[in-house]
């Protein structure tokens, strides 16, 4: 099922949709968290807000990695066997899914680096 989903247009851009959702989530949480003072609660050697941001970043990254893997599987599956009309399209959409997932993954990592390095509110 996951493979056929990755062959739809919406499915093949789902990694970037996740990037957008994650982006809006961390940006809003910094706004709300700093207003509410979550950064002043020490948790596990860091503060509540940073931990919250990290804890939504990790699932987003894993999900994107999984989407990329599904895209790759879809591409490989379609590459086996003959060159029918449908297979050509599936190969293309599978590879696009994978490539967009790589881009989304890198973009989230670039967002995550400052989360690890900067104090959340100042």
């Amino acid at each position, binding site marked *: 099922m996951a493979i056929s989903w990755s062959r739809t247009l919406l499915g093949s851009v789902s990694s970037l949709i996740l*990037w957008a959702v994650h982006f809006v989530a961390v940006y809003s949480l*910094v706004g709300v968290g700093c207003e509410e003072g979550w950064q002043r609660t020490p948790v596990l050697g860091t503060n509540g807000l940073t931990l919250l941001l990290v804890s939504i970043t990790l699932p987003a990254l894993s999900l994107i990695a999984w989407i990329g893997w599904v895209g790759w599987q879809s591409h490989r599956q379609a590459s086996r066997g003959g060159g029918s*009309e449908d297979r*050509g399209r599936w190969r293309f959409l599978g590879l696009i899914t994978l490539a*967009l997932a790589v881009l989304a993954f890198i*973009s989230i990592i670039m967002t995550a680096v400052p989360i690890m390095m900067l104090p959340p509110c100042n």
Partner: protein
Amino acid sequence: MTAVADMKRTWANAPGLVGQLTAVNHGTVGLRFVFTGLAFLLIGGLFAMFMRLQLAWPGNTVLDHDLYNQFVTMHGTTLMFLFAVPVLEGVAMYLIPKMIGARDVPFPRLGAFGYWCYLFGGVFLYAGFLVGEAPRGGWFMYPPMTGKDFTPGLSADFWLLGVTFAEVAAVAAAVELIVAILKTRAPGMAIQRMPLFAWYILATAFMIAFGFPPLILASVLLELERAFGFVFYNPDLGGDPLLWQHLFWLFGHPDVYIIFLPAVGVVSTLIPTFARRPIVGYLWVVLAVIGTAFLSFGLWVHHMYTVGIPLLALSFFSAASMAVAIPAGIQVFAWIATLWNGRPFIRTPMLFILGFFAIFVLGGLTGVMVAVVPFDWQVHDTHFVVAHLHYVLIGGMLFPLFAGIYYWLPLVTGRAASEGFGRVTFWLLFTGFNITFLPMHFTGMLGMTRRAYTYSTELGDSVAWLNLLSSAGGFVIAVGMIAFVVDLVLAFRHGERTADNPWQAATLEWAIGAPPPPWNFRGIPTVTDRDPLWERPELATGIGSGQGYLADAAHGRRETLGTSLRAAEPESVIRLSGSTWYPLIAATLLTLFLTAFLLAAYGIAAMLVIAAVVVCWGWLWTTGDADAPLVIDAGHGLSLPTHSASYEAPGVWGTIILLLIHGSLFASLVFGYYFLGLGVAEWPPPGHEPRGLAVPAFGALALLASGGALDRARRHLRSAEGGRLRLYTLIALLLMAVFLAALVQSLFEYGAPPQSHAYASLVSALTGFAALHAVIALLMAAFVWARSRQGRLDADRPAAMQVVWLFWCFTAGAGLVASAVIHLSPRLL
């Protein structure tokens, strides 16, 4: 009659002036967008010439500060809203059907309506000059400066109403182009074979759908504040001017890419032609297009680095600003690789592309510089930013556009421009551009602020000399522009006749003859390759002799093929509307409405709304071909259902895209509610606590029940019981009216006037959004009822019901969310 004569009778615009006013064909409308856009380019450039004269040396008195503010505002506004976006829409509207093997766009009336809105909106904006009320708040119109206190009079209203009006064209074009690309490609043009230009336009159109609504909302809110004293941006009563900045840049940054993507789409189309080989890395370019479309929505706050947002939040936007350089870089490498592996030849269009490379790479690099937060703090609001943005916009948009114009000119006219003249034009523009804008990097770093009508002699002699140089360069650009116009006129009048495919290009638009006939393809071809004319050069002859689908137009109806989303397999025959007065009348009514609103003649404005509803009804009643046979012979043994008999009619897809746009608008409004709520100590403020839940809960139940009733009506489509269908539609209509009454009642119970606090204004705005949709839903239900009564809505023609059902679902969803935000979130949060 011969087949070609049938085509001519079916597709030609009516003769004379009437024909021009009623034309809806994409070729006519697309070219109108392009030429009107070029006219606005000249006007916007003229403002720049005056500004450069004023800044030629410090303390100059060509323009006083007020006139300078008007000119700088109108320069930016004209070039962004009335030139860059519309001209590229025009190029896309003209080319996309020809490239993907369609006869016209799926909603020709909508395209024509968009054009009139654009033209009238532009004229409306300029009308401010006639009464001495030209906008002067900058193209970004930041409140509080543009609020009633600091900008009394009508100048800001001219901007808010005029620009929003012109934006209707962009939104209409987005719906039009998305559905065209997804649903009307030639058979066999599966998603992996689409011309790259279509990918760029598809991505751009989706960006318009998500990016324009925040600005439309921001403008509507500011106009409500100015006209009726609502509060959204005034901090004394719980508003926040930063809300405007967020909404404006949430539009404004994607807008840079909305302009940039179609332009580089031209680049990706021309480079294979001039390298004489297919693009290297098609898939990577598609990846870059989609990646850019998404990532460019994560950049908006980089225009707001200095407003006091937490550093970590700024670094997110800094990260996204750098991430977006990845897809840009991928494209540049794909272009270089294509040229490297090809046998490139240089003509005027290619020269403009090389100019684009040089200028845009510089603009991109200074873009990465200003994406670095501490560097931006140093150069923010200086001429360094002016230099950067002109390198990006002129390099990234104007040069590719001119390349495209020189490239497709032989297609449009059947004549070629003079190569020598074109090269002179290029060198004038290229050198003029660099002489004008390169010095601004230095004047900016030396401290010269932007948007100011003069500068201090204390900045030093070097700044004065560099400014003089910039102004001199400005005149070189002006000479280049004049040369361009002369070149264009000469080419149209006296250009040498060319072959049908003078550049030996690979894409379908070159297979239909130059100039192309209004129906584009006599027979719609089957596509089997990414570069159809290179793989099968005989296609052109086949198309011309009427091989392919739908070659018979004896019935006198405009037709094109509807195909499936990904595989492009034929699904239906789409019967398109021909010439009609409706678009012009509707746009004229809107102009009158906005004028009445501007003059505060609200009674007249309300009457005009009613007139507009009547016209819209007539428009919908007569659209397409209601009497089309259910099954149409497409030729070659293929029989297809007519589009209104299919559950995937273009109208259904158009509605989905339109609802995405409404959804983006609604999400921006909900964002505004929580953004303002976060900024004040108490939300809702004392005295504004929500009242009883009974009425809104009752309204919500009625809303859900109305959805259920309409669903029942929908089911009776299949059972062919028209009476039942109408009964349930009527019940749905009544229940929707109950919801509407509950909305009004609960606003009445709440009682605080919207002028009293931002909270009250937002409650009114959310209620207004839900109520407006409920009213439209009521009208739609009435339409469906009447259609069924007339016997034109049944299992065989379900499209109208599908459209209403989608709209109903959206109205119900938005209504429930609006009610929850108003009534539940103050209790829960």
